[in-house]
């Protein structure tokens, strides 16, 4: 088990948080509809379907129409939450996401389920480690990668309240509830979970609790590592990144390809402002067969792997 040990040992599936939140929001807002592509169960929307049978649109296994119907429903005055496996929602329907949602700038929420390598052994066709790189190109689309159940609820509520296109990347990987001093969520604002001055670990999604565990381990060795939860990948919190650069070393960690995701986004900012030694942790591309946990271990996305990367990056400081 690569997940960091937690004091209470309780782990959560963030899809449950998504499902409870959307049901709660739908009670109060009659505009809310869900749109699925035979993805009711995998989105954990069985409860929504029972409560609001007329407000769920299932287009069958047809992701292009899934996304386009979301755009049409928004035109017709609805507030659609389009939910499907992230690999197909973003990859199969990429041009619909571009033209019908982002470029048309419509009030549609895309919920990418079971993102990253959650489908482990099913292989790279079912992994979604490219989604942030693809969607980050659509400059007006908000991209949120919540790290735990509380933040998932906050992200869904913020997405519903925001008038415009939003993508929320939801994981099915078990994660603990993070300890927060100041539980506030705002799109585009990162949160510092651990203070530190020697280096900054910038992580999101399922990697955040691993980064916190890495910082704890580093502290025992006398290394002060800051942990920033960069839940919003677009727009990035450039203030938090500038502050991270002041620690002189940055390690980014994401359940995504090392090409074009959170790490790439941070690097784009850092190179233009205050270049410091940096390491981007994630997956190199198509990965071999293995469970999600095995893949994370294999590619060093563990507290130990992150700790090593931090020390190596600090060593590159001039």
């Amino acid at each position, binding site marked *: 088990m690569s997940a960091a040990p937690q004091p209470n040992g309780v782990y959560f599936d963030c899809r449950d948080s998504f499902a409870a939140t959307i049901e709660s929001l739908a009670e109060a807002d009659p505009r809310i509809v869900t749109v699925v592509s035979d993805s009711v169960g995998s989105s954990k929307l069985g409860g929504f379907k029972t409560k609001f049978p007329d407000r769920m649109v299932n287009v069958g296994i047809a992701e292009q129409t899934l996304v386009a119907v979301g755009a*049409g429903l928004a035109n017709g005055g609805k507030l659609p939450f389009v939910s499907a496996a992230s690999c197909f929602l973003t990859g199969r329907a990429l041009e619909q996401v571009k033209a019908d949602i982002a470029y048309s700038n419509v009030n549609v929420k895309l919920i990418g389920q079971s993102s990253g390598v959650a489908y482990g052994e099913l292989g790279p066709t079912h992994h979604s480690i490219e989604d942030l790189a693809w969607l980050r190109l659509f400059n007006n689309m908000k991209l949120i990668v919540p790290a735990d159940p509380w933040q998932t609820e906050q992200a869904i509520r913020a997405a519903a309240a925001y008038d415009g296109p939003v993508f929320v990347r939801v994981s099915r990987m078990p994660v603990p509830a993070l300890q927060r001093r100041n539980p506030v969520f705002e799109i585009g604002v990162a949160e510092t979970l651990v203070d530190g001055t020697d280096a900054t670990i910038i992580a999101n999604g399922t990697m955040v609790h691993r980064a916190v565990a890495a910082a704890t381990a580093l502290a025992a060795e006398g290394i002060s590592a800051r942990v920033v939860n960069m839940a919003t990948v677009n727009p990035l919190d450039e203030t938090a990144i500038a502050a991270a650069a002041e620690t002189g070393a940055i390690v980014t960690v994401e359940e995504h390809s090392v090409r074009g995701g959170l790490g790439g986004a941070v690097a784009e900012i850092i190179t233009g402002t205050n270049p410091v030694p940096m390491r981007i942790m994630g997956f190199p591309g198509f990965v071999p067969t293995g469970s999600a946990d095995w893949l994370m271990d294999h590619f060093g996305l563990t507290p130990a792997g992150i700790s090593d990367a931090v020390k190596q990056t600090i060593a590159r400081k001039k």
Partner: protein
Amino acid sequence: MLSSPPAGRTLTNDMTLIIRDKALWIRRRSFQMVYEARLGHPGGDFSAADILATLYFGVLRYDPTNPTDPSRDRFVMSKGHCTGAFYAVLAAAGYFPEADLSTYMKPLSMLNGHPNRNYLPGVETNTGPLGHGLPVATGIAIAGQIDGTASRTFVLTGDGELQEGSNWEAALTAAHRKLENLTLIIDRNRLQQGARTEETASLDPLDDKWRAFGWHVEVVDGHNYDELFNVLSESPKGRGKPLCVIANTFKGKGVSFMHDNVAWHHGVPNAEQFEQAMVELV
């Protein structure tokens, strides 16, 4: 709230004269736009002109001073490359000043080569890549079905565009949900960019395909105002199926040297050709 048209409405002589006049103007004005911009898709503009004129001056319920009125009928221009005709009919319908048409495709113009809803009133969704209009229109129609509104949704596709698989995904959902408030009009000019559709990836028998997908199909002369008006204005109430109107048309309709000529898919006239077209389009 826009009122519903009376049942059993027929096309009067006065309306026919207006529609014919508007269609002629759309052809003349859009060809001038293409001539001045040195860009455009005039062949498809001309095959669609009579359909657009019939929709905007005989069928659709809309208020150009309140373009997002929730009760409006929606028109989705899926063949988004034919902005010459689309922008001309929007201007004729009063959505924006006719003078704006002179900015077609110029730097910073609101009149991009493909329509953008954030630039112009009257554009429901951004199109350009083919096979996007029908799936979006299906979503609009589902919203109307959920709310039980009287609003109808019309979408105009090209015929070559039907080679995009996304249309057939949407066709399944529209029929499954019995979206009688949805009407697809196919501009069946039989020419795509490079050749005839039937020489590229055959569509025939096109009517049988749509019937097999569960749609009600009508085949009309896409340059005959009576046929277009009758099939498009008939109330969909109780039909229980989405409607597919296959409008048989000619690319370049109205100008002799452009008629049914694939070269005019995105051809641009020289001065002599432009003058000749203006002589013929009267």
